[in-house]
């Protein structure tokens, strides 16, 4: 790829990821999944092996549960940086107030506000093929009183 085409491709990648985060903000899981390859993989890193799976299965399940348990869940996209030829790092602050038990975090009505890093990988069609998400899970649990 020539340098100019590489640059343009990197910019297009960023568009898809920003759109994904904005869809998350709208709590529109179907729209989020629309930016992802059907066979795409995901890794919620703080959850270890249990956090690995398919975007359209594990990802969909966790986001749906999050929206159900934290109905006011919201995010702020701080920055998006293209890394390499096919990946984008998004720095996102996610916040919400708990109204139901979520996994091993019992509902105490707490509020969380947590820095998350999303690393997206995309294919040449600008579909997301892999997402790695990291955050300080101990701090998040502490904020929710767990």
């Amino acid at each position: 790829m020539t340098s100019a085409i590489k640059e343009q491709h990197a910019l297009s990648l960023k568009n898809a990821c920003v759109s994904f985060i904005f869809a998350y903000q709208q709590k529109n899981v179907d729209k989020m999944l629309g930016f992802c390859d059907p066979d795409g993989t995901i890794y919620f890193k703080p959850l270890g092996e249990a956090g690995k799976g398919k975007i359209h299965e594990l990802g969909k399940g966790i986001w749906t549960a999050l929206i159900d348990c934290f109905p006011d869940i919201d995010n702020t996209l701080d920055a998006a940086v293209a890394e390499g030829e096919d990946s984008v790092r998004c720095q996102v602050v996610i916040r919400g107030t708990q109204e139901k038990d979520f996994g091993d975090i019992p509902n105490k009505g707490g509020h969380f506000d947590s820095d998350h890093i999303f690393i997206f990988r995309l294919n040449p069609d600008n579909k997301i093929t892999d997402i790695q998400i990291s955050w300080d899970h101990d701090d998040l649990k502490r904020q929710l009183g767990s």
Partner: protein
Amino acid sequence: MIFRTLGPRILLRAGIMLYQKFSPSSILIPFVEAYYVWTSEGDMVDNMVIESPPSGFCSIVFNAGDAYTLTNKKFDNLTVPGSFIAGQSLYSYSLRLSGIVEMAGIVFKPAGLASLFNLPVYEFTEERIDLRQKFDVATVTRIEQKIRTIATADNKAKLLEQFVLELCNSNIPVADSIDNAANLIVERNGMLHVNDILREVYMSRRNFERKFFKKVGLSPKYYARIRRISYLMNIISGKKNVDWMQLFNDCAYYDQSHFIKDFLEFTGRTPQQYLDANSELANIVNKPVTQSLH
């Protein structure tokens, strides 16, 4: 555009570098921070490294001197295009210069690139984008050629202003609420709360953050953090001793740990490591006083 005669030029020299800044005409003030001309005045530099913390500004740069390279978190010695858009920097970066230094640039207010040219600024974060990808090639080539032939810094700055006016067909937009909010963050050196801004813009937080991200490339809160560290770095640039306690109080940090966290995140070093070994431009030129073009 008619330019009035300049007052006496103030040349600021130290070593071989000369760095001059010029203010824009009043209609461009909401969108353009300054024009600059940076030159070694025909002298050669040898493998000189200049580092810079994030400033909170995007720019368009024309390099009429020898090619140079950029190193940041993303690029290792990337040879930058001859003329380019520099997006927001999240972290310190360094330039490695050899040969003749001869640059002229337009420094935009945080939302200026988006307001003037309708560019998706968030795409440019941490990037150097060849100007020809975004603007008319013939116009860019013509300006590059003129920058090489014009002798004086003030005339180069005038050419840059003409370039801005030409690119937006002299249809200077009216600054909107996002321009004003971002410029307020700049004026306050990042020392304000997003809720203070929200009271002025009459938008929901979500709507405001989205619009801000599209025009500035960052969230308002994150942008304010960058502006504050930029202000702080400007205070300490060129110094070898600093009263850190006084400084983090003056910059309204909640406590020392927040201050050190921001410093480390944006510069990659602790405050003392930075003081011990920084190679900012301020070490080799005097801080420029902005001159009027008009």
